[in-house]
């Protein structure tokens, strides 16, 4: 292992890491928002929106991100819709992630006892107040593991952004490898970089899950 090569190229990887993390987190935040909207449309059975959400979720979950990106970057310009590579990255990741987040939220909502919604209604809460104060906090507690799994999954998915010619970690490594040929060092740094980004998120997930468990959530068993 050539450590001087590794040291010399740390700045390249740092740049790539920022691209990966920046687009990843951007996509994650937009995915959470889109997922929440979709899942609320289905929960409240909003006509039209609800069916639209269901179709979108199936479409997004059953096509690869790479294909979705090709469609955005190469397909849409043919019909006159042009996005920058950066916009394509965020839109593509959000398109994919929104569907997964919607399903994570839905699994959480379905785990909340129906009688909780009735109890909330019985103290005169509006449906919106009921979901905000009674249902959603409990659903979120259940959905946290799934949400974090999605966060990690989405950040890893950014590795296909190299097709958009964005200099994310994957592209940095690929460029170095093809130009210099030091495959072992290059790939070693690539793995290390992804681990450095994703391990802290995994740890955070565990901490948050534990917090929620011990704060008195999940008291559904003692009827």
């Amino acid at each position, binding site marked *: 292992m050539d450590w001087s090569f590794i040291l010399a190229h740390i700045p390249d990887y740092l740049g790539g890491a920022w691209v990966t993390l920046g687009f990843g987190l951007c996509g994650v935040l937009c995915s959470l928002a889109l997922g929440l909207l979709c899942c609320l449309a289905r929960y409240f059975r909003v006509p039209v929106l609800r069916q639209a959400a269901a179709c979108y979720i199936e479409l997004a979950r059953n096509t690869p991100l790479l294909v979705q990106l090709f469609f955005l970057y190469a397909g849409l310009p043919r019909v006159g819709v042009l996005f920058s590579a950066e916009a394509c990255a965020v839109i593509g990741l959000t398109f994919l992630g929104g569907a997964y987040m919607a399903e994570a939220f839905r699994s959480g909502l379905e785990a909340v006892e129906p009688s909780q919604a009735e*109890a909330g209604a019985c103290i005169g809460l509006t449906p919106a107040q009921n979901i905000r104060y009674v249902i959603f906090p409990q659903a979120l507690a259940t959905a946290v593991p799934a949400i974090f799994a999605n966060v990690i999954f989405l950040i890893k998915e950014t590795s296909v952004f190299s097709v958009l010619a964005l200099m994310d970690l994957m592209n940095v490594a690929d460029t170095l490898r093809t130009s210099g040929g030091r495959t072992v060092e290059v790939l070693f740094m690539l793995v290390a970089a992804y681990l450095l980004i994703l391990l802290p998120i995994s740890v955070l997930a565990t901490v948050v899950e534990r917090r929620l468990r011990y704060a008195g959530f999940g008291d559904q068993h003692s009827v």
Partner: protein
Amino acid sequence: MTDAILRVQDIRKSFDGNGVLQGVSLDIREGEVVVIVGPSGCGKSTLLRCINGLEAIDSGEIWLRDEKISGQTKNLHLVRQKIGMVFQSYDLFPHMKVMDNLLLGPTKALNRPRQEAEAEALEMLDRVGLKEKAYVFPRTLSGGQKQRVALVRAMLMKPEILLLDEITAALDPEMVSEVLNVVIDLANSGMTMAIVTHEMRFAEAVADRVVFIEDGLIVEEAPPEVFFHAPSTERAQRFLQSFTYTSRRRP
């Protein structure tokens, strides 16, 4: 009867063609405690759930004072602010401490200032013997304690009428009386209530009027001393018989 606070007129409700309520009419006066009894599956819980709109009725009308509440969908939450309901399964919100459970309705639905509502909540918790439990999570409470909190939660909305749906059915026997004594206190303070229960001795103690329902119809209505000791219908007699046992030891 013009002094009725709640008027239920000929309501019908069926689930999948199964007529659970087949034309039930019931008036409840202010301050009156009506206990609804009957065999399981007779429609008594459905009746309570229809009154506050948890189930939509197929036909008939429900009036709360001068307001027709059946058929409303948009302002159902405003109607429910006036009709308290407590269930068998307590249904406290597990992610909130007792006090937050109590204050959610008053502060969010009624827009009352938190401080004022909190003082009142503490006072009511004190009355049911749970003042020291105000800031714990519900999972640390016993069933009887949870149900008393649920009663306080309903009462803090200052409802016009309180519906109690088998609120002791899930409790261990020794916890039943701590909950029912709270209900009797409420009755004594003039709270209007419709109570579904299987506790016949409690029913006799608390009721101003007993309504016996079977197969989705009111079969008999009578003051408790009449209903429990000299029921006029044969079906009520048979129902009450099922609560007595013959000793197996012969003299």
